[in-house]
């Protein structure tokens, strides 16, 4: 048993060269190759790898591989992506190894290799060619078989016995390679299903083909009975055509996801490296611009194709394309830590996960297969006619149930990613479709989150500049949008900083406990009410001796916010604004955007209760936040959206991450999920209705083998064409009106 194809090739070369004495005389085995691939990473005692699967024919194969992997000892997680045909496996290196995983996959007749873009490209070309070649053999065989069958159809019994025998033998010679070569994948898959005792979608097809051929061949050899060589070839052609179409459609669906996944950030770079990115080049790692003024196309990550201006101090992301001038960049995150790599991993995880509706359909398909086999057997025994069994096996098409979902979901994921919304869980589509209420957070969601300092009120012994410096020092460890309002400049030494989510920060400065944040949070330290000069301020600074300063901040409302609220209402969705802000400031914003349901001054816990109360009334709640401070509420809501403005995408715990930082992607997501679920329901509905009609008809002998073949292929084609319908009937959402006023901001 070899650990990889490379070792096997080496061993073959050695033996073929006549050097097999090496294996008899060696005293030590050769060292194992170290797999240093970006597709494999280790963390917390768990190793995770992306494996390319080879020899996969349809979704049933992928399901089988997933089940076998999950039963292996030492494997903590195994998810197979039905579109990219990659498995994401996590295992405990103490209990098992990559080599034994691969041999487990091999034991059921497939192969696997660590994900490598070049190798995958080569593998895809091979698969495409062989699929096309099989399709041609079957199609040509069907055409020619028809020619030989034609005289028998029109002669009305006048054809002489000898002439008819010549035609039958010619048909046999043509059909044999069609069955032996073109249909080989069906037989291989059916054999696999039998051997592992998991009856799947391929068994009925293989039985139908083999049964029809053997019965026809027997009729030819003995010179008696009926032959249906033309029907068998035609069935093979139609089935392979459906498979080929499925291959092309799923490749096309995953094309834009692949672009992201195939672009791998450079692993040669380290944090702190400096490099120059020439115009027209892709930035190889996340970093900060040190020199140069240019603009970059970040569409690979955000879907936004307009170039983003870049100046010294601005962040650039791996995968973006530098446009005008060379940029000198200091690397902050490289390789697998980059934003692009994190987004690719999230996108892949989303593709590995299925809505409940799809899981149910998969289960029905498997049960249906068993029913079909039993009905075929019973009908054939009852009427003593093998052709009835063939018609039943061929006409029913349980696979139509399994075909549509991977295509629809991948296309929806790809469509949304291109428009700035990254789905991290495909199972969220079902909840997204039914959303009745959208709860919006204020800071960083309805507003841009880029705060600026409007006024500083010095309340104690320090002057204004020292107040700002002290605030800056306390906020420096925080990711909160407030921290950026204080800019760069001199700082104080700060000890033991502690972050109180939604309240503020406490630390020890010059031996005194000091707090920055909401008014009542600071008042606990200052122990007296704030002076009147702090009127209108939102961020406070105090220590144990009393008030130090108060700051008035302002935050620009996103220009598209008002139109978004209006369009959400037009779709019958109730809009709520839940803000941790002072009620007055939030109320002004709510009035500006025409949001009737507004609550201010909420702690994260209050927000959770608010969402729970809505859910108790049977509402389906989508929560939109910045993904960091409102993580508990996001987890509570039925569906969660997070704005990815500057934050690390990998840390966001949300179902949908708005990577483009564009609020309109929220509407695109709602619309696309409604459409995706409609397409899925239509496909499932069709597949169920078709099988319900055709199964009894075939069992009663009303449908001949060739009609069955046509029906099955037409059913597959209808399902696939339905799944390939456009994801959106109109352009991505854009704000029709804009308003940008800047209400004052408060800490939340």
């Amino acid at each position, binding site marked *: 048993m070899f650990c990889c194809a490379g070792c096997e090739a080496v061993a073959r070369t050695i033996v073929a060269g006549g050097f097999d004495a090496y294996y008899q005389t060696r005293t030590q085995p050769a060292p194992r190759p170290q797999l240093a691939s970006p597709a494999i990473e280790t963390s917390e005692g768990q190793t995770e790898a992306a494996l390319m699967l080879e020899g996969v024919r349809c979704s049933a194969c992928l399901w089988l591989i997933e089940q076998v992997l999950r039963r292996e000892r030492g494997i903590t997680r195994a998810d197979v992506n039905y579109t990219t045909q990659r498995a994401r496996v996590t295992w405990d290196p103490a209990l098992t190894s990559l080599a034994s995983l691969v041999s487990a996959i091999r034991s059921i007749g497939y192969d696997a290799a660590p994900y490598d873009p070049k190798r995958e490209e080569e593998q895809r070309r091979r698969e495409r060619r062989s699929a096309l*070649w099989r399709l*041609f053999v079957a199609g*040509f065989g069907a055409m020619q078989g028809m020619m*030989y069958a034609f005289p028998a159809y029109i002669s009305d019994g006048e054809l002489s016995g000898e002439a008819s025998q*010549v035609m039958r033998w010619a048909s046999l010679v043509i059909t044999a390679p069609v069955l032996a070569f073109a249909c080989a994948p069906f037989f291989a898959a059916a054999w696999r299903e039998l051997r592992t005792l998991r009856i799947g979608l391929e068994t009925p097809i293989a039985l139908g083909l083999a049964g029809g051929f053997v019965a026809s061949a027997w009729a030819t050899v003995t010179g008696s009975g009926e032959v249906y060589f033309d029907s068998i070839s035609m069935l093979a052609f139609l089935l392979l055509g459906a498979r080929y179409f499925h291959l092309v459609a799923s490749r096309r669906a995953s094309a834009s996801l692949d672009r992201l996944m195939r672009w791998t950030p450079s692993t040669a770079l380290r944090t702190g490296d400096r490099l120059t990115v020439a115009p027209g080049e892709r930035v190889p790692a996340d970093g900060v611009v040190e020199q140069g003024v240019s603009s970059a196309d970040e569409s690979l990550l955000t879907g936004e194709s307009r170039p983003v201006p870049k100046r010294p101090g601005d962040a650039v992301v791996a995968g973006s394309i530098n446009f005008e001038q060379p940029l000198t960049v200091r690397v902050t995150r490289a390789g697998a830590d980059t934003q692009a790599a994190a987004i690719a991993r999230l996108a892949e995880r989303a593709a590995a996960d299925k809505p409940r509706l799809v899981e149910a359909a998969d289960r029905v398909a498997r049960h249906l297969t068993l029913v079909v086999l039993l009905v075929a057997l019973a009908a054939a025994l009852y009427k003593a006619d093998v052709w009835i069994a063939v018609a039943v096996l061929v006409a029913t098409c349980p696979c139509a149930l399994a075909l549509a979902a991977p295509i629809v979901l991948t296309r929806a994921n790809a469509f949304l990613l291109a428009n700035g919304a990254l789905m991290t869980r495909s199972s969220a589509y079902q909840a997204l479709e039914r959303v009745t209420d959208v709860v919006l957070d204020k800071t960083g969601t309805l507003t841009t989150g880029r705060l600026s300092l409007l006024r500083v009120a010095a309340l104690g012994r320090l002057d204004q500049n020292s107040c700002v410096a002290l605030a800056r020092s306390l906020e420096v460890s925080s990711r909160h949008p407030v921290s950026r309002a204080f800019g760069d400049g001199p700082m104080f030494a700060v000890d033991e900083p502690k972050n109180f989510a939604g309240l503020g920060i406490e630390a020890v400065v010059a031996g005194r406990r000091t707090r920055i944040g909401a008014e009542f949070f600071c008042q606990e330290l200052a122990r007296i009410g704030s002076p009147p000069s702090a009127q209108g301020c939102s961020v406070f600074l105090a220590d144990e001796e009393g008030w130090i300063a108060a700051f008035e901040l302002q935050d620009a409302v996103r220009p598209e916010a008002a139109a978004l609220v209006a369009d959400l209402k037009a779709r019958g969705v109730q809009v709520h604004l839940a803000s941790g802000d002072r009620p007055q400031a939030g109320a002004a914003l709510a009035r500006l955007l025409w949001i009737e349901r507004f609550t201010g001054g909420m702690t994260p816990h209050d927000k959770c209760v608010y969402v729970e109360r809505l859910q108790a009334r049977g509402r389906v709640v989508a929560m939109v936040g910045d993904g960091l401070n409102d993580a508990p509420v996001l987890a509570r809501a039925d569906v969660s959206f997070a704005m990815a403005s500057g934050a690390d995408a990998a840390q966001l715990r949300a179902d949908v991450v708005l990577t483009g930082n564009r609020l309109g992607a929220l509407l695109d997501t709602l619309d696309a999920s409604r459409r995706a679920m409609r397409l899925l329901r239509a496909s499932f509905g069709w597949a169920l209705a078709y099988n319900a009609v055709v199964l009894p008809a075939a069992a009663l002998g009303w449908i001949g083998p060739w009609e069955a073949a046509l029906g099955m292929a037409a059913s597959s084609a209808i399902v696939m064409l339905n799944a390939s319908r456009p994801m959106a009937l109109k352009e991505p959402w854009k704000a029709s009106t804009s308003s940008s006023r800047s209400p004052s901001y408060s800490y939340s």
Partner: protein
Amino acid sequence: MESLYVLVPLSVVLVFLIGFVFWRALHSGQFDDLDRPAHDVVADDDKPK
């Protein structure tokens, strides 16, 4: 009638011959990109400077 005994086997041989020709075409990469020819028709400028 006797011609059938020659023509039918001949057609079978022909089928295998045509199959071989297609196999050669496939493996020389003719069908690897089926989208490009459609675009080539629209792009009139065969020799861009």
